[in-house]
């Protein structure tokens, strides 16, 4: 399969994933690294003290998530 577009790569990856379950390990690493990075960023920004929720909600209001 000749891959040109982003969609081609998604198709190729899904086909390979069906053939080789070990690719799930790499996918897990990607997701884990995203979650850990995200967690660290917000911990740096909001701390983990008693005022976490207050600070978090102020952030959420600022980005219009609540």
């Amino acid at each position, binding site marked *: 399969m000749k891959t040109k577009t982003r*969609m081609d790569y*998604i198709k190729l990856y*899904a086909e390979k*994933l069906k053939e080789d379950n070990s690719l799930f390990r790499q*996918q*897990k690493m*990607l997701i884990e690294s*995203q979650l850990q990075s995200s967690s660290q960023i917000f911990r740096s920004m909001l701390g*983990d003290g008693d005022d976490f*929720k207050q600070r978090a909600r102020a952030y959420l209001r600022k980005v219009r998530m609540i």
Partner: protein
Amino acid sequence: MGELSIRAYRCISDYERLLGKRRRHTSSQGYDGSGHFVKKFLDILKRHSDYLVVSGYVSICSGRARGTEDVDILFPVMSREKFEMLFKDLTNNGFWCYQGDDHAGVHRYVKDMDSVRFALKKEMFPNIELIPIDESRKAQHFEFSRPQKIRINDFEFKVPEIEFEIAYKETVLGSEKDMEDAMHLRVFFSSGIDEDKLKKYKSMLRRGL
């Protein structure tokens, strides 16, 4: 209730074997190694309500390599009394709610059919977007009434029929991310997809169900 294909099951089981045995988090907060975030939330939610896990998490569970910040879960709109029990169970067991600490205040969102979000204490992401539904939300109500199960080791949860998930992403949502998710699901579940059903769902969605 339908089930996903055997081949897909094998892949998903392999994934969950990895995901379910998450490393112990070194922080005093967040993941505690006793099971992952979604399982922990669903174990509580199941005590109070029916549910359906939808959208990105379905694709990610089947191997889609992309990030996400939230997990969308449909649940039938519930009374203030029932919601109070759910809210207390969640907040007493490691979750906090973006919208507030007062169950009555948060229930107003639910009553108005607005989503509410929960995350693990002292964490922002990932979060659960808990989406209330009733019969007025036709597409959600339709998929909710036709669940399919994914079993991942000891973690079993309900998702929409894959044909509906693909049809909804391609016909209703249609963003680049959704089209990519749909392509992944089409290829990954290719051996188990009922093409006639997929066409029927797409047609129904175009006509507003």
